[in-house]
């Protein structure tokens, strides 16, 4: 179920990117897409009887862990995500400085 939710979030993000004409809304759609992708990648490594991949004193052999590799990939991807979002917002702000609007249609009228 949660995998279907992740794919639907991704599709929502694509829909928002295609139909919105507001730059901030487009960045929000990008973030929604990102969140869906993170959930999907984590869900690939999940196992019903696995435990979190951290060795404790109680753990002997024969324990099943969830796959740690997707978690490592998503950990770095989240930090990259804040970098790209910050850059996109900075560019949106400088666009607003020039045209006084976030809307792409109103920008076209001024050109």
């Amino acid at each position, binding site marked *: 179920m949660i995998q279907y*939710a992740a794919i639907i*979030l991704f599709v929502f993000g694509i829909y928002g990117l295609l139909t*919105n004409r507001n730059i*901030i809304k487009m960045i929000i*759609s990008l973030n929604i897409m990102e*969140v869906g992708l993170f959930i999907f990648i*984590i869900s690939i490594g999940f196992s019903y009887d696995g435990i979190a991949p951290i060795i404790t004193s109680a753990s002997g052999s024969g324990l099943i862990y969830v796959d740690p590799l997707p978690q490592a990939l998503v950990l770095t991807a989240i930090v990259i995500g*804040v970098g790209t979002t910050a850059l996109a917002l900075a560019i949106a*702000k400088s666009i607003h400085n020039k045209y006084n609007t*976030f809307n792409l249609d109103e920008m076209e009228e001024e050109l």
Partner: protein
Amino acid sequence: MTMTLFDVVSTFIGVLLIAIAFLALNSNKLIRAVLYLSALSMLTVVAFVLMKAPDVAVTEAVIGSGLVTALFVFTLLSVKRRETK
């Protein structure tokens, strides 16, 4: 086929995620869309904890629902201020 507790909770989280994403895409005010995005990140943390990924959950809780929201709000605030001038 019986529904375990995990299935019930994950279905609930999935439906909530979709509903909040829909609200974020269809809200008229930009600030509301930003706050819905923050709520979406917070629910994602629950999904990560359910799927046994505590490292990712901590990171997403700090970054996704804290810092990114702050950056969005600062952008909107600075723009509003220039418009009122």
